[in-house]
């Protein structure tokens, strides 16, 4: 069981090495002549005005919120699907009921208009 994860663990350690190498090489061979004008924030050629952290719409939060709830519920269904062979009718219905409760939330968000982008 842990041997399965050993490969992923080594991958986890090695995977960032390749892109990091690709960032280190330009450090050595690429020219470096920074000046204040060059490192200005790019905005279609005009000078940038005001603060970077603009005010975002609350809609971004709402969509992520609906996503969070759905994500959590669906992740719980994965063990149910894996054990599907051994489940009796009651267990299957319990899973379907779980999905219907999920649909409830979706219908509410839809009716309420929280899924509209204005």
């Amino acid at each position: 069981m842990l041997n399965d994860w050993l490969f992923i663990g080594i991958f986890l350690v090695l995977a960032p090495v390749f892109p990091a190498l690709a960032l280190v090489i330009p450090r050595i061979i690429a020219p470096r002549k920074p000046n204040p004008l060059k490192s200005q924030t790019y905005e279609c050629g005009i000078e940038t005005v005001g603060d970077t952290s603009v005010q975002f719409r609350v809609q971004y939060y709402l969509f992520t919120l609906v996503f969070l709830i759905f994500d959590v519920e669906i992740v719980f269904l994965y063990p149910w699907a894996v054990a599907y062979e051994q489940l009796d009718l009651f267990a299957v219905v319990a899973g379907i009921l779980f999905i219907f409760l999920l649909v409830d939330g979706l219908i509410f968000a839809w009716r309420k208009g929280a899924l509209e982008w204005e």
Partner: protein
Amino acid sequence: MGDPITAISLWLDGLLAGWGLAPALIIVIKALLGVGALATAVLLVDIFLVWVERKVVARFQDRLGPNRLGPFGLIQPFADVIKLLIKEDITPVGADRIVYNLAPIMALATVLLLWAVIPLAPTVVGTDVNVGVLYIVGVGALGTLGIIMAGWASNNKYALIGAFRTVAQMVSYEVPMVIALLVPVLLARSMGINSIVNAQDSYWFILVAPIAFLLTLITSIAELGRAPFDLVEAESEIVAGFHIEYTGMKFGLFYAGELLHALTLSGIVASLFLGGWRGPGAESFPLLGIVYFFAKAFFLYWVIMWVKYSLPRIRIDQMLNLNWKFLTPLSLVVLVVTALLDKALVGVQPWVYVLVLLAANLVIAWVTLQILRSRARKERQRVAEPRPIARPPAAPVSSQGA
């Protein structure tokens, strides 16, 4: 002599044991070598993908594409890489240096990590960890994180807006994707990718779950942020999105990550629905499995490019409507129908099972198309109504922008 990979593995076992190393250490060394070989091979394929991308887009646009450097321009991507390596890399003023440099590394590393669970051939499996499908979703979530880090650390309005749009799109489309991925898990009774491929020995899952296949493909394209879902890097609005401030190799890493991500997701979809490495003779000659796998993966990759260069970009409200009001309900319906039919059809002949599930999918598809048709009719009427051409703004614009 059908299986050189196992032969090499056994030979390494013998060699290392001959040096007097402990068995646990041998496993670690073999895993290290495997990871190194796999990652190098994948990155070479990635460089090759640059050439494929440029060549295919040229053909779609009736051009020739790169054709000067080497046969068919095959050396061109290496020239590209060298050019990126010797470009000056500029850090914008006010950037958060550590996070700014970490973001492109994460963008490519997370895509590489996905290859740990993709089976290339019966014997060339990185690891068949028993939660493979969720592992893919989780690593994808780490990729989302890289984008938000890039957008925030650049200290640029457009980058931040682009990152927000990207993340909103990626997390939204993750919902139907996770539900659609549940269907092959349900059919195979396992989350391990190789177990799912093994479960497709008598029929590919695209036969019993064609709608889930299409849903996975569409949501994969959205996860990639490719056209028609490329509003996250709409040049006319926010220039390039989250990687606007990245230059040289840092931009190159984002680019390479995006190309490789497309192939990786194609490979995953091929494994889950098209039988992965399965094909005539793949069991006895594992190397054939690699050929079949990449043939299927590149076919799907080509489909993704076909879509990319054929469809116009959609608006953000259309993108979100498509996801929450069409793909998510459809995927839930497909999941419930598949689950119920699977339980009802216990003990029948495989061909009955396939036919019933295929018929059920066709019925769902037909009903969906009818609903879509009536919606489209209404939409055409709505758009055709006369509207005022231009109005002066009635009230001062509210402060809620972006």
